[in-house]
């Protein structure tokens, strides 16, 4: 009864709804609270999960299938040489503070992001830009220094949303965008409330009147909140072992999809014995990825053989390249001079998927005569310091959650210490290729090189375990980009 009162009080605070009509408010649970609400000045995924396309909009957006769709730009043309992008903007669009949106805002937002003083976490998006021109309020012309095959995709990311000069400086605490929902309040440590933007430029498409994001870090508490009805949806449930019971419960819809996060056991390729490709292949042969997913993530999560998200159309399954084969692993180790055994360490962060995987890796490698000692570390602070910056490690394990980040294996001075000129050339080529088919072919080639060369042990794709009220419709199954897009969400009656 009391619970009902609470829910009722919550609803009343938004609007009075007759009991027979479909609900128009949604409470979304998230494991981590965003540190601010401006995705253009900080990296955390949680910022995007609240704001992207709900509150802020970019020139284009990524849809639930990972494809680029028009948003603030209603159309665009790319010059034949791939260097000039001409965007035609939606007209009559307003920011939440009432100021008008036009080409000057686009120029401002991108100039701000590529400024030397900018703290945009994905500055490379803007690196190819040479000039931004605004011939009229509804047209933006961006000239590039070099072709960029993924330029449009990048413009769909949270790092490239359009912010206004009047409000940009205070967006972290008081966000102002052009999206269908505007900021109402933020009770730090508990919830962010958004309400319907009555002046939204395509307001007829929006079914919800309000969206509340609640932050619940403890996995048990997440489950309790769903069951008690305090939260309508948890698009990213923390505990896989508790996910299965929702599958059996008809009050809920439980959907296992893919995130952009590849879980890999990175190796220090510059250090013995990892500088020997035979050792790296042997370690990969020693891993039964299916059993690993079973043990570390209750069977949810797709095994991977390279470093590319299954959400992306250019994905190729590479798990067959170096399959589970303990005898082969032993033979390769012997060939490399480690026939009498090998002892290595893995720095494992505290996240459940990482520490569980590390234990399973250790047990599997023991079968192949490799002793893997686990050294616990703290993510992110200590891990960034020791592994990422100082490269003081043998092996480690984390999920790389950025979309389209295969180029991390081509970066100089990245923590893998991996150097492969052929791979670098292929990735650079892919990044420049504007023809989609040719670009995807290059990405397939890059995936194959990694699968054969094993600079890291490719384990599995971090799944997106979504649980929501069975009456909620329109949430995403996969997340080709970190988000909780609620623009298509509605309640069935």
């Amino acid at each position, binding site marked *: 009864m009391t619970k009902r009162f609470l829910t009722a009080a919550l609803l009343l605070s938004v609007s009075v709804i007759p009991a027979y009509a479909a609900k128009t408010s949604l409470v979304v649970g998230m494991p981590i609270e965003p540190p601010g609400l401006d995705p253009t000045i900080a990296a955390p995924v949680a910022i995007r999960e609240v704001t992207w396309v709900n509150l802020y909009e970019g020139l284009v957006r990524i849809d639930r299938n990972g494809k680029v769709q028009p948003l603030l730009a209603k159309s665009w043309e790319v010059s034949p040489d791939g260097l000039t992008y001409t965007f035609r903007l939606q007209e009559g669009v307003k920011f939440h503070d009432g100021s008008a949106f036009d080409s000057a805002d686009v120029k401002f937002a991108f100039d701000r992001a590529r400024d030397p003083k900018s703290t945009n976490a994905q500055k490379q998006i803007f690196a190819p830009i040479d000039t931004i021109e605004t011939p009229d309020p509804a047209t933006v012309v961006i000239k590039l220094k070099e072709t960029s095959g993924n330029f449009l995709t990048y413009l769909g990311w949270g790092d490239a949303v359009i912010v206004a000069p009047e409000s940009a400086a205070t967006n972290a605490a008081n966000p102002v965008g052009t999206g269908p929902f505007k900021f109402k309040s933020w009770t730090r*440590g508990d919830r962010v409330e958004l309400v319907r933007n009555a002046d939204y430029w395509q307001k007829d498409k929006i079914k919800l009147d309000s969206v509340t994001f609640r932050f619940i870090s403890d996995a048990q508490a997440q489950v309790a909140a769903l069951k008690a009805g305090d939260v309508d949806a948890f698009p990213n449930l923390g505990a896989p072992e508790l996910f299965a019971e929702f599958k059996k419960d008809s009050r809920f819809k439980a959907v296992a999809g893919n995130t952009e996060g590849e879980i890999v056991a990175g190796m220090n390729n510059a250090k013995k014995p990892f500088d020997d490709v035979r050792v790296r292949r042997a370690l990969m042969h020693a891993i039964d990825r299916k059993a690993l997913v079973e043990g570390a993530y209750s069977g949810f999560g797709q095994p991977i053989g390279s470093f590319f998200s299954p959400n992306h159309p250019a994905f190729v399954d590479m798990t067959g390249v170096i399959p589970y084969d303990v005898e082969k692993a032993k033979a390769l180790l012997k060939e490399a001079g480690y026939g009498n055994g090998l002892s290595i360490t893995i720095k494992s962060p505290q996240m459940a998927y990482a520490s569980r995987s590390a234990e399973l890796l250790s047990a599997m490698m023991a079968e192949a005569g490799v002793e893997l000692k686990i050294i616990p570390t703290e993510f992110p602070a200590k891990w960034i310091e020791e592994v990422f910056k100082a490269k003081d490690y043998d092996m480690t394990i984390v999920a790389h959650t950025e979309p389209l980040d295969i180029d991390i294996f081509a970066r100089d001075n990245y923590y893998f210490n991996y150097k492969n000129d052929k791979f670098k050339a292929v990735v650079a080529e892919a990044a420049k290729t504007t023809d989609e088919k040719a670009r995807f072919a290059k990405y397939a080639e890059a995936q194959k090189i990694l699968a054969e060369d094993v600079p890291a042990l490719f384990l599995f794709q971090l799944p997106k375990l979504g649980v929501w009220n069975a009456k909620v419709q329109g949430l995403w199954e996969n997340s080709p980009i970190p988000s909780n897009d609620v623009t298509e969400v509605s309640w069935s009656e």
Partner: protein
Amino acid sequence: MLRLILSRLISLAVTLLFVSLAIFLILEVLPGDPAAIMLGTAAREDTLAALRQELGLDQPALLRYLHWIGGLLHGDLGTSITYKMPVSTLVAERMNVTLPLSLLAILISTALALPLGVAAAARRDGPVDRAVLVFSQLGVAVPNFWIGLLFILFFSTWLGWFPAGGFPGWSAGIAPALQALLLPAVALALPQAAVLTRVTRSATLEVIGADFVRTARAKGVNKAATLRRHVVPNALIPVTTILGLQLSFFFGGAILVENVFNLPGLGRLAYQALNQRDLVVIKDIVLIFSGLVIVVNFLVDIGYAILDPRLRNRA
């Protein structure tokens, strides 16, 4: 009395200064770069440098310490690195949860412990005494966060009497706010109540065996009046000491319980800030927690003097 208060106040200030220095030094050697955490692994070196400069992390340590202390003396707690808002606002918001939670827990804990302890001691080895011993044994052994989880399962998920965590805010009204705080407060209070019950029981027993109590009884004062007028006031001194010490446990326990119940309190803020290496926030919260413990101990010292007239003239 005045001299006592004055001398305690001076030692309080000196202690706080040393604590602030210790906090600063510990955070200096703690690995972790707030800028790298904010910007993630894709950030470029020049972007990181820009953020470090914006946050003032590129300045020498001594300067940063003096800046912090100088700000504190002016009542300025600084600006949170992650939230980008004044720490004082953040702390004030969180205090609205942690302070009532701790006070409620103290209230519950003393309300349970004092009567139970005295009742147990009044009839030693009787049925009440045995029941109290079992309860306190259990309470000491079971951690508060586990009690919290059981409470959620039973009262929230199963019975649906309480929300399964979270805090509606005081603006939602006193009743819903208290309802959200009640389970966590009980979870926080039970282990401390167990300790306090044991202390009350043994302190009462000790006093009951004293000569002046026997004298009182011999003079014909009945048992209940002896307990009320002679035993309990004397037994309260060790109990107050423990209660004072327990306050630090309440604040520490709040970190765990607030996480289990998902309450936006100071403890959870501290935990989040530590994960994010929001050094500004951590420094302030640890200092506030230490300050509270120091102040409480100061009050306990004064409390002794009120409870025990003999202490009033000792400085």
